[in-house]
């Protein structure tokens, strides 16, 4: 390194190293203890508090037992389902329907979103419809689906699709719309045009919006499915969570009703926590958009 440059600037290499060291963002992993303290403790506390208040209301006798059963009675219903061996069957019937329906919604919503985002004619034609459909509760489709398809699995899937496809398509559209034009310009100067540009620049850049759409799409799938199962329940369909809840209502079995609600809530949260939140966090973290 005896070039005239370094001879005239003996300090520059050191200066540069100093700048790099000073300005580099330090990325640290949070210790497990802190994760437990910050992420696990607060929700656990909240659940314990809700249970305590519930128990307190029961003990104080604010209302009749058949309206507000003891938490222990709900626990007992759960135990009985477990002992009968039907608990996982019930959950799996609904979850498998939900996941299958979601997969179909994904396969339909993604190309639809791409078309709407990239073809102006399609956007003008379908864009407003897609956003409008998002604010239509998918329960509203249940009567139509039942008349068209009968009380069948096909009706369930139809309702899931109508709920989830608009979310997924809209997520992709807004993901693509939010891609900074600078990335596309940079991509074009590097020679990424046409299909290569879409695959190597546009789609990866749109991923955060797309994943947000998937997350919402799952929530909509699950909600629509539960609504469909509640309204269109039939013995031929197999016992899912919605039917379980509906059966408990007709039997005036309040602990069963509460258990049904809690299980639906629990499954929805569990799948979000197990699949969609980690996916979203990963996408955002690699881009430096989340801590």
């Amino acid at each position, binding site marked *: 390194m005896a070039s005239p*440059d370094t001879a005239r*600037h003996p300090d520059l290499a050191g200066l540069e190293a100093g*700048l790099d060291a000073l300005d580099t963002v330090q990325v640290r992993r949070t210790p497990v203890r802190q994760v437990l303290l910050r992420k696990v403790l607060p929700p656990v506390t909240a659940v314990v508090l809700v249970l305590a208040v519930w128990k307190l209301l029961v003990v104080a006798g604010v209302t009749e037992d058949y309206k507000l059963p003891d938490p222990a009675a709900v626990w007992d219903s759960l135990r009985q389902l477990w002992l009968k061996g039907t608990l996982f069957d019930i959950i799996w019937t609904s979850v498998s329907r939900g996941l299958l329906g979601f997969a179909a919604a994904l396969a339909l919503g993604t190309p639809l979103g791409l078309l709407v985002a990239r073809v102006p004619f399609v956007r003008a034609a379908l864009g407003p419809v897609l956003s409008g459909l998002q604010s239509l509760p998918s329960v509203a489709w249940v009567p139509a689906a039942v008349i068209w398809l009968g009380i069948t699995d096909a009706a369930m899937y139809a309702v899931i699709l109508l709920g989830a496809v608009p979310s997924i398509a809209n997520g992709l559209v807004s993901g693509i719309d939010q891609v900074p034009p600078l990335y596309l310009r*940079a991509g074009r*100067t590097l*020679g990424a045009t046409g299909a290569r540009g879409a695959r190597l620049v546009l789609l990866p850049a749109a991923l955060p919006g797309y994943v947000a759409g998937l997350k919402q799409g799952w929530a909509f799938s699950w909600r629509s499915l539960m609504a469909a199962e509640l309204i269109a329940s039939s013995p031929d369909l197999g016992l899912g969570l919605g039917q379980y809840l509906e059966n408990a209502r007709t039997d005036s079995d309040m602990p069963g009703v509460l258990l049904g609600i809690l299980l639906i809530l629990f499954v929805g949260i569990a799948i979000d926590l197990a699949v969609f939140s980690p996916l979203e966090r990963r996408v955002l973290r690699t881009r430096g958009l989340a801590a």
Partner: protein
Amino acid sequence: MAPATTTALAHAVRLDHVDKTFGRSGDGRPVLEDISLTVAPGEFVCLLGASGCGKSTLLNLVAGLDRPTGGRIDVPGGRPALMFQEHALFPWLTAGRNIELALRLRGVPRPARRTEAERLLDLVRLGGSYGKRVHELSGGMRQRVALARALAQDSRLLLMDEPFAALDAITRDVLHHELTRIWRETELSVLFVTHNVREAVRLGGRVVLLSSRPGRVVREWTVDLPQPRRIEDAAVAELSVEITEELRGEIRRHGKP
């Protein structure tokens, strides 16, 4: 060490009476008017002007991102590399992968990409940063990766659109030095747009002053100072004062009714 192409080309880029008007059928006011400019192979030319002189428009035209309304632009070396004021690195890729993407689009086969990306990172003195994410790098480091990515295109012409404008003075100074070093090592032709007079004199072999609305070539200076210069050199300061005076006059013209 000069590649054969460098000596074979008569010019790196040549603009002949280039006009640019936005809007349909050219009914808007012209942004660029009658620009004629030639950058010789291996030359470092700085384009200088106040706001509204159409500097960025001019670079877009040369880069082929937009078409001139009139005149001709000849870039014999193929698609030029372009560096922006913002680093424009892709945040879903690591520093090394950003460079590899440019290599891939250029048609470099997969096995050779990694080695070439490492070599380019070494060239901008970021040897250990292959696996770093964009958000983990400082502003100066990002611009160095962006420079490495631009160099990965292996173009004979590098266009730079105020690439250091958002950096602090000391980082900018270091990057001026790195750019001068790399320019001399690679014998690239550079067309560098800036509104910073000192920066233009520090870097350029030639400084071209553009007027505003429409952008026209007002005057040009040949900078006969040996490289590497420093931004605080007395000779750099002296010429900067002269050019700044001219630039002020150019801006003042717009304040008159």
